[in-house]
């Protein structure tokens, strides 16, 4: 296979031989509870601003911690087990429920799907597995904090979420990473399967190290995320707030196979300094009366480059399918760029596809208007950006929405004024 070249990003050729394909924290013994977790590890989490244990308890969130490829703690497992939900590391799942893994793993993203998915499929060591049995509504938001903490450690996470008939789950994925100088490749694969009437909501706030102001260092985030609406009237909703990484290459997609199934993609992608993002979604309509919504908000600052790339495909079988896409770009300063690459393929005459796009710029006059009312530039930009992203933030769970709002303000600090 060849590395894909079509994305609107530039980076030196990756030396795949120099990547360490497996790295684990030093304290390796199996842990039964949070108390046994290496205090050094907990301190790292503290520094990152994630008081994990408290947060998990207070917010009622079960956290499956991934720390350099090995899961070290899983909370709330018992409570989830009561209703039959399995939420564990994928390595554990391979041992404990091999039948489910065999049945679903690789069915949404085949091993040869694309270059980076193939790499992941070949070398992944761990990740998360979540199974919601028939008619169970998951009683809490499930959350995984991914961390990358060893220099030059490639991370090849694998996530599989299966919601059976009538089940529903909301899954949160949040990411931050400490500062490093060398580029780190992250090539994860996430697969979602929704059976009849099932509902999966997958939310991401991504804030990996983006490199310094001169574009040195930072994470390469080349991720394949795809959901299969396998059953009738099933629904898969992706919400992402992408603020980190030197390069983001990511297209959370929905394959709408079941009749009346629904796919959604809500995205905020912010790039600053020398960051590059080529992100969007694919909505593949196969079933009858399938519906999809795409709301993409791109914010570019500094000398960054931010592209939306989206495919809406209506198969001949998808009678009555509908899609609505909205792609808005906002520019801050005059050295950044924003691009929109919509691909629309309609093969059924009864389909309805709408695409709207806009580009705006935070201008001197807007900032002056705020200033004249006593409001400084940073606060003004934060208010304009939050207004711009409102439609996406509304989709996030409350706690995440607050975090995302703060994060955007933080990322844009010093980019105006």
């Amino acid at each position, binding site marked *: 296979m060849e590395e894909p070249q079509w994305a609107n990003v530039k980076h030196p050729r990756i030396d795949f031989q120099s990547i360490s394909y497996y790295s684990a924290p030093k304290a390796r013994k199996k842990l039964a509870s949070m108390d046994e977790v290496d205090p050094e590890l907990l301190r790292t989490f503290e520094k990152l601003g994630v008081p994990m244990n408290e947060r998990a308890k207070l917010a009622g969130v079960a956290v499956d911690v991934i720390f350099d490829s090995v899961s070290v703690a899983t909370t709330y497992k018992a409570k989830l087990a009561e209703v039959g939900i399995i939420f564990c590391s994928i390595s554990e799942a391979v041992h404990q429920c091999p039948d489910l893994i065999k049945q679903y793993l690789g069915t949404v993203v085949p091993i040869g799907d694309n270059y980076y998915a193939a790499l992941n499929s070949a070398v992944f060591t761990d990740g998360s597995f979540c199974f919601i049995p028939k008619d169970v509504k998951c009683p809490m938001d499930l959350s995984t904090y991914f961390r990358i903490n060893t220099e030059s450690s490639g991370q090849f996470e694998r996530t599989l979420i299966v919601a059976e008939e009538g089940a529903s789950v909301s899954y949160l994925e949040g990411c931050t990473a400490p500062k490093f100088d060398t580029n780190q490749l992250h090539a994860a694969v996430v697969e979602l399967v929704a059976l009849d009437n099932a509902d999966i909501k997958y939310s991401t706030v991504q804030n990996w190290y983006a490199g310094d102001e001169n574009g040195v260092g930072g994470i390469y985030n080349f991720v394949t995320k795809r959901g299969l609406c396998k059953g009738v009237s099933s629904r898969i909703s992706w919400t992402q707030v992408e603020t980190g990484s030197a390069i983001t290459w990511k297209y959370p997609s929905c394959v709408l196979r079941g009749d009346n199934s629904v796919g959604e993609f809500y995205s905020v992608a912010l790039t600053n300094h020398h960051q590059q993002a080529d992100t969007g979604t694919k909505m593949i309509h196969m079933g009858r009366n399938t519906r999809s919504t795409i709301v993409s908000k791109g914010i570019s600052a500094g000398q960054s480059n931010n592209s939306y790339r989206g495919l809406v495909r209506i198969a001949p079988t998808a009678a009555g399918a509908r899609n609505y896409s909205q792609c808005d770009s906002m520019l801050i300063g005059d050295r950044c760029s924003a691009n929109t690459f919509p691909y629309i393929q309609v093969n059924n005459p009864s389909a309805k596809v709408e695409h709207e796009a806009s580009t705006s710029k935070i201008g001197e006059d807007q900032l002056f*208007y705020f200033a*004249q009312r006593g409001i*400084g530039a940073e606060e003004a930009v934060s208010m304009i950006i939050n207004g711009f992203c409102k439609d996406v933030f509304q989709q996030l769970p409350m706690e995440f929405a607050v975090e995302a709002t703060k994060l955007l303000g933080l990322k844009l600090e010093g980019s105006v004024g």
Partner: protein
Amino acid sequence: MIGADSKTLLEARGLHATVNGIEILKGMNLTVKTGEVHAIMGPNGSGKSTFAKVLAGHPAYEVTAGEVLLEGKDLFELKPEERARAGVFLGFQYPIEIPGVANSQFLRLAYNTVQAQRGKDELDPLEFDDFVRERMKLLEMNPDFLDRSVNEGFSGGEKKRNEILQMALLEPKLAILDETDSGLDIDALRVVAGGVNQLANENNAIVLVTHYQRLLNYIVPDYVHVMESGRIVKTGGKELAVELETRGYEWVAGATVAAGAAA
């Protein structure tokens, strides 16, 4: 409404300013005391709006000479937002649209920022809602305004009301109203002028920048200044505005040329 202990609020001396390298203000002088209402009139391009924007600190304008003191302190030492917090308010000729930002949110942030500067209590969204609705009655504004994006899709008259509402909330010491009367029909003009009159008191001052005498029937100025080529060429009482209306700006320009020749 000039009180007995009226103080000097603003003093502009020999002010020169350029935009895109073109000199617009050429030796502007103006002194404003508390309790006073000034009207600055003059033909298009005479520098009225430039003067207003320079005072507020618009980044496109560069001050090349002269000074402006606000309560005895150098105004140009302050950033635009600091001038606003110090009590300088500019009512925009063309208020800026800010899509996606709710008017209520914007107004509250502005209000709380200025309140904090004055060491007063900030208001939470519920308290502010009560407060702002009360102030909106002054301008006969529909409460719908609060939920709409700042100035987005507002008619000309609605935008101008929104400006005066902001003045009512921020209670500035010096309010410079740039062509607030343009785009207003006669009823809206009456309401907006009524609002301004209620806000004027002996501790603040108002500078009206206008083309027409019409506004001055509703807001009666203590002084009328006529600008020409970047400076004030004539100052008089309210009767000067009436005279201008009948005789036109050329009359003033002609008079100054004649005066210059005589000197």
